[in-house]
């Protein structure tokens, strides 16, 4: 059984499409809304893809913009220009 990873983001206008993109890219993820924030959990791995977000927001998106609204996470991080990955799997 793989351990759960999670990403917590502020719930605001900047993150609305980011959250949609993450949910679209991670079919196994589940969304847990909490006061003023959301917590997205997934078994083993969670990915955030720049391209999916760009399609939804209709502009260029730098994955490091995530830093502004990120609250907390669990899992090992790997960050490139195109994909941000949280994972306990090896």
């Amino acid at each position: 059984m793989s351990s759960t990873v999670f990403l917590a983001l502020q719930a605001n206008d900047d993150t609305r499409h980011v959250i949609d993109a993450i949910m679209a890219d991670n079919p196994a993820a589940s969304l847990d809304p909490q006061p003023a924030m959301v917590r997205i959990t997934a078994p083993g791995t969670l990915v955030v893809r720049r391209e999916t977000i760009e399609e939804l927001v209709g502009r260029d998106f730098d994955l490091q913009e995530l830093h502004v609204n990120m609250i907390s996470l669990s899992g090992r991080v790997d960050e490139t220009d195109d994909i941000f990955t949280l994972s306990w799997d090896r």
Partner: protein
Amino acid sequence: MDMPVTKKKKLGLKERYALMTRGLGWEPSYQPIDDIFPMDRFEGIKIHDWDAWEDPFRLTMDAYWKYQAEKERKLYAIVDAFAQSNGHLTLSDARYINTVKLFVNGFAPLEYMSHRGFAHIGRQFRDVGPRVACMMQSLDEMRHSQTQIHAISNYNRYYSGMAEFRHHHDYLPYLQVPKSFFEDAATGGPFEFIVAIGFAFEYVLTNLVFVPFISGAAYNGDMGAMTFGFSAQSDEARHMTLGLEVIKFVLEQDPVNVPIVQKWLNKWTWRGVRLLTLVAMMQDYMLPKRVMSWAEAWEIYFEENCGALFRDLARYGIVMPPCVEQIRLERDHLSHIAWCHFYQARGTSDFHVWLPSKEDMDWLSAKYPDTFDRYYRPRYEYWAKCEAEGKPFEATAVPMQCQVCQIPMMFTEPGDPLTLCQRHADYKGEQYHFCSDHCRDIFEDEPEKFIQSKIAGHEVFKGNAFRPGTDPTAEGFNPAAEALAFFRIEHGRDNGLHNGSTDERNFALWRGLAKAND
């Protein structure tokens, strides 16, 4: 509007990060490297290949400034709007303000200590990668303390208990718990500091601080605290990742590092959870509108989340700290023991307390079915009777404190909630007292360090809690009143019961005025 531009070929994130961190370092030519970085070896941690270090968040300084500036702009827009619209009058209840007091007195000064600690170790690691990461965290922590103090200063204009937060943090007995926590970490070596703060605190425990405080602020109408909380927390993902990277890096470098790291994990998980006693109490008792109980937060953020982490670290031979057994046994007692203590010892704190109402107690029974009705409800009902008779119970004796965590010895034996837990150790002809086996173990590992603990109760008896020029031999000298004056607590205004306090009256008065025309 977006203009069509021909994109220049940019370097990838990994290359940019490498150039802007390790690429900025150099090999010293006329001084031995051990003389330049004298502190990163004495703890016994062996590093063979610093190049194996890589921060997974590849944030370079230029991007750092850009995103931090954006965070500040968002923060101050809201802090200003909150102040300009008298946002404090939209709070759920005046009792909530005591959470803010606890925060500015107990937590904001820790952010400043964290800034100092990371600045210090950012100088002490011989590799550029961790130095850059520590420098950014040091700047973050400075920003956290500044924005917290700034945002909370709006409350200080109207309510008590906050104006002397710096002095209180240095001297008030209950605040020696958080203060001693960070002083212990900052007086360790650079690896212990980063395992203690970067890993045990940021990665293992920070969610337990964050969830109750920021969600609680949002839930109770405190837009100011919610915003600085989120703004600070947006740096935490980076801090946690640094903590995790350090631990992985150190464990991979040499097997001799494993037992040293395990010892620090055991120590700092315990010290961290002892410190979180204050948070548990805030969560279960101080938020008028509650988000989740301490026990629920513990299940999600420790059992689930840290379970995953320790499973991941098992391949290095790291195990869950043994203190977790006791923490589980205390889970359903912690907040109740703490609030009972603060209720009784309300004379020497700088926020107000109250007895839980009938509904509060029903919520607590539901959340703590095995403990609340059996051990704690009867106390509150008895104290409510005393209050109703006009004879509220108050404990005025100076409590005995644990030499390590500095918490009054109020905890009960693990698994035996009707027996007080006390441990002792002799060292160089003196006896020292502890709240638990784990605090005693920490002492016995470094007795020369912990015999120097400044214990607030002892300071009072030694005559160190009096203002300069005080004559304790004078006719009618009142040591308790003098100690309060030294602590800068105005008796009857800053301390005591919420019901009937100036804060309670003013909040009701101003809120009434805000809703009427005259």
